[in-house]
């Protein structure tokens, strides 16, 4: 059995890219909201990290949907998915989540960047000012819903896979949680990377804040990974076969142990702990850690997608 071609393979790498991008968007938005409300308050729009998080969240969710549409066998019929709904289908519910999430995301961005938007539009389109101040009145509601929907989006990517009864590695309740947590940490990494690239201060309050959350997040991810595979092994039968096939020798075993556990989780954890003990954070440290985290999450999505389809029950 080769790593990328086998009989039971239905979904290929574009789906892994989509799962990754949706997770990044959900995570980036989640951290943008946290940064604004816990850390920066009204000055949020000045922070490179919040700007980066908003740009990343908006672009990656659109790019992910683009990949998804191009991957359909009938890309021009994609509108049918927006017109016809099936309440028992995770994908259909995901479409609703994605649409509402995007509306809330743009509304929240408009509220947060109210000042620069209003300044820009004051003479050109005065109506925009009225619109943003109207949104401003519902800020609490929009923020609350946005957090709920970003968490839903992160978990949905896992439910999408776990709704399939005969792939034992996907059909578990831990998968959505694993995808949610790794999605959040990839969002944090993308915001940090974008932030330092947008000339944010690598030793700023935002970086300290995100790193403080990232350490427990990585530990939780490792714990979930452990629970995920132990659960499969203890279920016995094909579940056990699936876990051992994925983790054993061969290409995907290497990806898991070296790429995901090593480069994607252990290395960022070590660097985060190191940066917490030494007082000063540098551009290269922050950017390097973020790149490793992102790499780990891309690999995790591909690993789960491919190895999950290798064993059927």
């Amino acid at each position, binding site marked *: 059995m080769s790593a990328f071609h086998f009989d039971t393979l239905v979904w290929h790498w574009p789906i892994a890219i989509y799962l990754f991008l949706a997770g990044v968007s959900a995570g980036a938005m989640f951290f943008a909201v946290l940064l604004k409300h816990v850390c920066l308050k009204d000055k949020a729009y000045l922070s490179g990290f919040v700007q980066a998080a908003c740009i990343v969240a908006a672009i990656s969710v659109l790019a992910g949907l683009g990949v998804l549409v191009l991957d*359909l*066998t009938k890309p021009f019929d994609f509108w049918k998915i927006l017109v016809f709904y099936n309440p028992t289908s995770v994908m259909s519910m995901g479409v609703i989540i994605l649409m509402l999430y995007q509306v809330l995301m743009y509304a929240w961005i408009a509220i947060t960047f109210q000042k620069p938007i209003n300044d820009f539009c004051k003479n050109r389109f005065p109506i925009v000012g009225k619109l943003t101040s109207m949104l401003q009145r519902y800020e609490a509601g929009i923020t609350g819903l946005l957090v709920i929907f970003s968490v839903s989006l992160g978990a949905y990517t896992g439910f999408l896979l776990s709704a399939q009864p005969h792939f034992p590695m996907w059909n578990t309740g831990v998968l959505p949680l694993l995808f949610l947590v790794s999605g959040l940490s990839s969002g944090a990494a993308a915001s940090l990377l974008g932030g330092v690239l947008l000339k944010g201060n690598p030793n700023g309050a935002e970086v300290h804040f995100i790193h403080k959350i990232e350490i427990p997040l990585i530990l939780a991810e490792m714990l979930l990974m452990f629970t995920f595979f132990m659960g499969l092994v203890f279920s016995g039968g094909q579940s056990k076969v699936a876990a051992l096939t994925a983790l054993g020798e061969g290409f995907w075993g290497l990806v898991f142990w070296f790429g995901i556990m090593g480069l994607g989780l252990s290395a960022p954890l070590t660097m985060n702990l190191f940066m917490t003990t030494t007082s000063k954070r540098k551009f290269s440290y922050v950017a390097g850690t973020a790149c490793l985290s992102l790499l780990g999450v891309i690999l995790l999505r591909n690993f789960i997608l491919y190895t999950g389809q290798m064993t*059927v029950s």
Partner: protein
Amino acid sequence: MENSRRHFLKRTCALVAGASVYPLSRNDANAETDIETNDIKYAMLHDETKCIGCNACVDACREVNQVPEGVSRLSIERSEPYGEYPDQFYHFTRHSCEHCEAAPCVTVCPTGAAFIDKETGIVAVNADRCVGCLYCIAACPYEVRFINPVTKAADKCDFCRETNLKQGKQPACVEACPTKALVFGNLKDPKSELVTLLKANPTKRSKLDLGTRPKLFRIKAKEGEIIL
């Protein structure tokens, strides 16, 4: 401010929880009443002791349903010759849609293109509504769905719902079988040949542990070997 936000969060949580549970409960209720009201439920029996592996069913299916080359709605899988020469024999297993009562393809389909015909219990595809997301193909435990290269939609056996059945005939595979190994009929008709045979013979259905409740029954050929 803090207080109103808390109230708001509470209410939205309740709303989201309610909204997500409601459709599930309604759907189950519908399914219950449907089972009681209609009086046709088609199923098929493959008697593997009679099957000689001639593939006449496969060819008939392709011709009647105009299935393009390279894909198939139905295939007969032949397993190893068992036993010692000259006492050797093959096992033949029908590989096609099992028309599950709880069909995973129907559950996951985002547009409702995969559906169970309420009149007949047949799992069918509305090719026009299918967008080709491959979700059903991945979700089907029996791996019988495929993308039709002409329509670009998911396709599979529908008991000739659009062709022979519409003309009042038996499905193409059943008509073509020279040894009468295939029996098609209505599970709700106690006098039908199908029900009589199902009552008289021990039958098997595959992957029952997944809870799919398939309607393709098999009379198994004698066991060829010990598998631990």
